[in-house]
């Protein structure tokens, strides 16, 4: 199995390079004049040239990419003129908050989704199945930011039960802590619940159709024992989707964090976009994308342990 893991790691490297390249190209080449925002309106040509040299903009493209990449690897993202702070410092603070929100959302979304999907898959065609299927299609179609606003309207504006935004830390007591998390987690994980439930249901239903299930029943196994077998066989697509869900959550954090004033990466991106502070957008995007690639890598390796073929290195 180990060689397979290494092979998978080897495959992740080009992907990582590609991801960074795409972001770098997008945000340092496409927009018109990268200096326009950094220079005062009355800057002279000499000033421009000086700044360009300072930022390394006069070097050929591949060289610029390599320099940038090494900076990124060292955690050097440059300076944000708008926030007057080092970007890495900005990111560091935001990162913790986003990780907190995303992991709570992921756990909540996956647990709920897998539970619902399993129920629907086991009781195919029943009322439970119809409810879950219906719920899943709603969850897939509903914009998370609208759910967030609805929750705000109901629980903050009308009932005044939950705080409208901001985050709290554990020291302020669990009640306080969770009251700040509740709405962001709920609205953010809606899509995850829906997709996970759908994939789990499909995978379990599909596995139940497999011929070996007949053998298991013909052996006289109890129905719960049969389900154990089915579950182990059905786990692979669920794991894959779990990895992708983390991506949805990280990407979706931009919206949720903005609405709930959650000081994370998402809010950072939102504010940076509004200010056209592209270096911050670039840094944050790279960070989220790399996290996503690594998470999927982790999921893939985890998956190998469920597949005897890969375990035996075939």
């Amino acid at each position: 199995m180990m060689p397979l893991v290494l092979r998978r790691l080897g495959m992740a490297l080009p992907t990582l390079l590609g991801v960074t390249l795409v972001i770098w190209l997008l945000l340092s080449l496409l927009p018109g004049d990268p200096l326009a925002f950094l220079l005062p309106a009355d800057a002279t040509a000499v000033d421009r040239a000086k700044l360009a040299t300072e930022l390394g903009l006069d070097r050929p493209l591949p060289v610029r990419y390599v320099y940038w990449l090494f900076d990124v690897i060292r955690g050097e993202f440059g300076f944000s003129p708008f926030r007057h702070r080092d970007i890495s410092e900005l990111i560091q603070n935001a990162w913790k908050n986003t990780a907190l929100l995303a992991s709570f959302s992921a756990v909540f979304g996956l647990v709920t989704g897998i539970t619902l999907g399993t129920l629907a898959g086991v009781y195919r065609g029943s009322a439970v199945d119809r409810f879950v299927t219906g719920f899943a299609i709603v969850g897939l179609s509903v914009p998370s930011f609208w759910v967030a606003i609805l929750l705000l309207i109901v629980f903050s504006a009308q009932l005044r039960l939950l705080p409208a935004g901001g985050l709290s830390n554990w020291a302020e007591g669990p009640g306080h802590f969770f009251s700040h998390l509740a709405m962001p987690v709920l609205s953010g994980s809606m899509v995850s619940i829906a997709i996970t439930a759908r994939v789990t249901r499909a995978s379990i239903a599909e596995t139940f159709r497999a011929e070996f299930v007949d053998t298991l029943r013909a052996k006289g196994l109890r129905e719960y024992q049969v389900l154990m077998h089915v579950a182990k066989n059905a786990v692979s697509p669920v794991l894959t989707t779990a990895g992708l869900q983390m991506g949805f959550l990280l990407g979706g954090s931009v919206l949720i964090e903005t609405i709930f004033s959650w000081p994370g990466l998402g809010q950072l991106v939102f504010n940076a976009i509004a200010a056209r502070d592209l270096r911050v957008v670039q840094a944050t995007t790279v960070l989220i994308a790399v996290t996503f690639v690594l998470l999927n890598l982790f999921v893939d390796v985890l998956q190998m342990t469920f597949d005897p073929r890969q375990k035996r290195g075939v």
Partner: protein
Amino acid sequence: MALTAARPAAETAMAPADGLGPAGAGESGPLLQVRDLVTEFKTRDGWLTAVNHVSYELHRGRVLGILGESGSGKSAMLRTILGLQPKSTRISGEVILRGRDLIAMTPREREDVRGSWVSMVFQDPMTALDPVFTVEQQLVETIRRHSTLSKAAAAERALELLEMVQIPSPERRLKAYPFELSGGMRQRVVIAMALVSNPSLLLADEPTTALDVTVQARVLELFRDLKTKMGMGIIFVTHDLAVAADIADDIAVMYAGRIVEYGRLEDIVRNPQHPYTKGLLEANIRPGQTERPEAIPGAPPNLAKLPPGCAFAPRCSKVEATCWESLPTLDSIGLSHGVRCFVATREIQNAMPVAAKGA
């Protein structure tokens, strides 16, 4: 051979575990009686009768070959006996094994019967085993389901079973995953799993169809051994007359969900009466054959759209007007021989006016 040696151990191992109580009456009569079994599936176009009023008996130590082509209801019939049909299936009739009616049992009782009184071997060994568990895990769980053996003892018994079905280097195979075994070996594992608690009835659904002929020959040999040395009754479903002739004592020929002819192997092979059975015999290419086989025209029927009357009428060379109008009954035409055909019954009655009539 290992078969005889393994038997006493197996009996002591399984006896106490199943909550089925003592086997009821009928121990002295036939092992299995199927009476008027009907299985109907729900489809887009309404109900479809896969098994249509099928009745037969099976005795201990005998092999009943069920012969039929695609859509003849042979597999559906086996699954109905074991209760493996989806919930939406409509089932009526009786399946009496060791004095108990399997159809009338609660789902929980049926779970107890499966694997202990009656086991099944499936067609495709490539898909019949759970791919993510080792052979040992799958055997041990089956053994422990039907006995009170400890894990270690069950593992020992698993090894014994693999030896019994003649798997080479069984210790190594126990630790293997199904994908690491060849088709023939997998089928032996499936058979071993079916033998865990010495069932009195073994259902085999085309167990050799997916195998190469040299492997098939050895698996058939294994089945013959099981029959003679363990004394179980076997229902062996196949589409291949030659395979049936190789293993079966009695044969029932199914067409479109109904039994159209039954009898001892010799009756069917040497003295077939139903035009379909005759056609199948003709169509089978024999070794060294040079003359053209006489083919049955047409194709096996679509169960959703059966013709009125005899289902074989559209393909039959002896078809008469009555065949299209009413369904012939399954008439007894000898001690153990029966046929469902107007023409055949009439011809036999004409030849032997005193022959007993009626089913």
